[in-house]
């Protein structure tokens, strides 16, 4: 599996650290009730197929929202998390 960094292009998988589903970008507001926070921290769509998840590119320090397929392991590309969150 080759992973794609928006800065550096297609790179070896070992240059990346995996964080988890991109659902973690949808952070609830601080004043929201506890249940919403518990769901945010623990519950996952966990899709079989197309997914968006968070990867960190160790050499360049980019947090990336990766578009990927969990069944075929195809990596379609990624966007900087800082751009996605705007």
């Amino acid at each position, binding site marked *: 599996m080759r992973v794609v960094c928006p800065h550096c292009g297609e790179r070896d998988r070992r240059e990346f650290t995996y964080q988890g589903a991109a659902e973690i970008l949808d952070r609830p507001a601080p004043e929201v009730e506890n*249940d919403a926070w*518990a769901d945010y921290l623990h519950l*996952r769509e*966990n899709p079989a197929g197309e997914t968006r998840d968070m990867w960190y590119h160790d050499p360049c320090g980019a947090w990336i929202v990766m578009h990927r397929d969990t069944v075929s392991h195809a990596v379609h590309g990624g966007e900087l998390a800082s751009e996605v969150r705007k």
Partner: protein
Amino acid sequence: MRYSGFKVFTEGLTGNKGWKPVWRDPEPKSEYDIVLIGGGGHGLSTAYYLAKNHGLKNIAVLEKGYIGSGNIGRNTTIVRANYFLPGNSEFYSHSLKLWENLEAELNYNVMHSQRGLINLFHSDGQRDAFARRGNAMINQGDDAILLDREGVRQHLPYLDFDNIRFPVYGALFHPRGGTARHDAVAWGYARGADMRGVDLIQNCEVTGIDIEGGQVRGVRTSRGVIRAKKVAMVAAGRSGQVAAMAGMRLPIESHILQAFVTEGLKPVIHHVVSFGMGHFYISQSDKGGLVFGGDLDFYSSYAQRGNLPMKEHVMEAAMTLMPMIGKARVLRSWGGVMDMSPDGSPIIDKTHIDGLFVNCGWNYGGFKAVPASGWAYAHLIATGEPHETAKRYRLDRFRTGRGIMDEEGTGSQHNLH
């Protein structure tokens, strides 16, 4: 048909013409009292104990592939009860006791071999941690022996004891740990459940769960609608997709875990050896293949195959621990889909929907749990109350923060186990 040595002998003399399929291939009925979604090890053992322990008859197991096609046929067959935390400790202790009687119980040779599990340690701090774990195991009524370096050498003379990074200081020895033939466990439970009237329906994929007014009514499948009073999800790595049909999200991420086997060799590794610092463990199958594995690939996946970096890591760990393994040739590798929970411990519970139950979150440890998971899940489904060995496996523990069971002590969040 009851299996016996005499039966094998007489069949051998008569051309083995008397063997017959050991479970039926029934058409699904339009209605059951209980439908289990998933015909893996846990689903089959649940069906078996629902019939055996609770006298229930009108049960179907729906399997989207064939019996044995999931993780029950893709694991590294290790059976052990070396857990530390209350909640896990009594559950796996119960499971090991069920394993020890499983062949007589099922009249089926699951090749359960208590060859002993050896967990190595490489520092004084690790020794203290293993001593504490061993005491917890003994307190639970199981067996644990702390071996020093020379004690390990008597069992495993072939290790590299003076490895510069991970010198062997000793090990925690669990003599009742061992292995079992994984397919046979599925087949044994399948046969036992079928003999007690359970319908095992293969090639039957659940496509929807019908819920009316907060009460489950049945399932829609690739082979038609099936009404049911109770529906029990037990789909391991696919739990997320099954739960989504009931409008639920679970605290589960599915990850890939690889395993490997070499060509068949003469007996050389007589135990299950675990090298935690290298995320490596190994045993030898009765056919002679060295069966070994490592850590997760660490990205969510349903591919049932992994990538090369983890293969390389596992081979490096193997060479670090036992250089002789370099003479063996790897025959094949495969991957299983692990239903990883935030704290690394499983879930056996009701859901907020009446009549709908959930069993998932087995992480890397589902195989050894098959008997006790089925026992406890059957109890929950039949009586509505959690079994005493599994009462801490609550679905809501992540929401409430009460009863988190983080066996590794790494924290309770995704991607830490």
